[in-house]
């Protein structure tokens, strides 16, 4: 079956995905965007057509890919479910847990599949590290460190919603949610978070967002995450370190050695070669391939709706901790 795909939101991430969709064995039917000129431009560039309404797009496709700004995920995903179409929703699943729950319920009621774009689960370094942990390469995992740092995303007039904390949630809801999801994927459920950060309502005069987060996992392990939109040299950076009773895994996108495995019983570090990613490993394309494969074979997604909800819940716990100035138990965020 050749799926028909429609994209809601023809901004940066919508066109990023369109670039990948058009290389996959699907019909990219078209785009809807509040800014009709953006939808038209995307259709011209990637094929398909610009739809005048969300409903019209949903009626014409099998899969709706929600790439609109976060505050619109709820309405757009519900529209897709109402039309009984499968939904791929970019992270975060929604701005609030009640909206996320409504999306999940609507998809279940409609009998359609819901995939949340927690794409870090498709980055080969991250996938490989998790597999090494599962394979007991570092013994019992006891801590994880993650970092995601970039410049501020509000680089053009249509992306100013990133600056509105009520809409975007700031760096920990937009970017840090990747790391929170990955931490949970590798280390299991989080019991408590404590976070401090710079929010938009800050005395520095900076348009910025930054957070330092500590995590306590149900297993007893610890974690920390730094998320930043304060990078001034324009270089994106991501990093992880996972430590265990028998070794340490390190990855940093900036240094020369992006992936290092050090074992406790070795006299020297065992270096895993930094293999360049092949085009088939490109994580965004991998993610879409995965969705198509799971739909065709009726398999479980790597990211379940519950995973998407939990990533959102963790992000909201971080924001709540920053707001309250105290540790927040996940049980408090329902």
């Amino acid at each position, binding site marked *: 079956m050749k799926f028909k795909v429609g994209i809601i939101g023809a901004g940066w991430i919508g066109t990023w995905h369109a670039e990948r969709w058009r290389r996959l064995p699907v019909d990219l039917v078209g785009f809807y965007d509040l800014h009709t000129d953006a939808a038209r431009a995307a259709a011209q560039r990637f094929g398909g057509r610009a739809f005048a309404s969300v409903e019209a797009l949903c009626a014409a496709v099998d899969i709706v890919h929600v790439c609109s700004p976060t505050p619109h995920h709820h309405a757009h995903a519900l529209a897709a479910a109402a039309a009984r179409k499968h939904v791929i929703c970019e992270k975060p699943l929604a701005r609030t847990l009640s909206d996320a729950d409504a999306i999940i319920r609507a998809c279940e009621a409609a009998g359609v599949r819901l995939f949340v774009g927690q794409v870090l689960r498709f980055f080969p370094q991250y996938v490989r590290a998790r597999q090494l942990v599962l394979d007991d390469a570092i013994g019992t995992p*006891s*801590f994880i*460190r993650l970092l995601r740092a970039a410049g501020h995303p509000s680089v053009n007039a249509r992306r100013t919603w990133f600056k509105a904390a009520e809409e975007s949630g700031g760096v920990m809801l937009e970017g840090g949610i990747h790391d929170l999801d990955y931490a949970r994927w590798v280390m299991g459920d989080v019991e408590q978070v*404590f976070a*401090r*950060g*710079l929010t938009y309502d800050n*005395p*520095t*005069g*900076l348009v*910025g967002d*930054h957070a*330092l987060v*500590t995590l*306590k996992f149900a297993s*007893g*392990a*610890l974690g*920390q995450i*730094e998320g*930043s939109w*304060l*990078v*001034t*040299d324009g270089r994106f950076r991501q990093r992880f370190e996972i*430590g265990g009773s*028998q*070794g*340490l895994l390190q990855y940093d996108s900036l240094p020369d050695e992006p992936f290092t495995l*050090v*074992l*406790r*019983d*070795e*006299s*020297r*570090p*065992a270096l895993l070669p930094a293999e360049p990613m092949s085009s088939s490993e490109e994580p965004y394309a991998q993610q879409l391939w995965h969705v198509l494969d799971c739909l065709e074979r009726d398999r479980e997604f790597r990211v379940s709706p519950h995973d998407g909800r939990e990533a959102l819940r963790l992000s909201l716990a971080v924001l709540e901790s920053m707001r309250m*100035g*105290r*540790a927040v138990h996940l049980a408090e965020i329902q």
Partner: protein
Amino acid sequence: MKIGILTHEAQTERCCAVLAALGIEAHPLQRGAAAANSLDGVITDSARLDSTWGTSRAVLLLPPFGSSEVLAGLSADAGAHGTILYPALPLRTLPPMQMLHETLADGRLGRLISVRLEYHVQDSGRPLRDLLIHALDVLHWLTGDDPVDTHIERTPEHWLASLRLGDAYALLDIGRALPPGYSLPEALTLELYGTGGFCRVNAFQQRLTLFDQGMRWEAWTNDSQHYMIEAFIAHLRDGAPLGTIDDWLRAQRWVEELS
């Protein structure tokens, strides 16, 4: 300049080698021997007053330091003999850390927003309290601020402390996470964000990268003891600043409060 060395054999050899590289005359001492009054300074790992210190102006005390009470008592006893005791605070003396200190002092990062400090060692026997004392001392040395509003999470091998320093917030990640095969015996990394830019330090990998108008990168060797002794000599020669007993006791007091 003459420096007495009163440590165990391997340490003495190491200290002598560093001093020789600096062109300084080193005199290995025997514990409890007659005072060597012509010495300018002594380097020792013994946290008790020794007759060999004689009239030395200054003593650099290498770890282990003992309790606050022992250290304060030793400092007072040494002071009564006209000798100032300095605890080894080697993290401060690493060149990247010196550059970081200058960068902050010059105000190049603007108003400090955040500090993340990770300090981990291979040594499975090293007390985590000791690592935290060094980490807190570094923070105070860099910012001049006292940590307040602290939150700490602990496992037997790993501590995470979140705190505020003036207007900035900080996360200290300390522990014994480096496996025996790791390329360095200890690793200290810092990332700081300020209103003027951000700065990354990987102190033992000897890399400091400063981003503001451009990017700078510099590299050094990674022997912290070398730099500690060099700083001690610079202090004796021309009064260059050196971490004091009060610094150590202050950091130790904070650790008590956190604990």
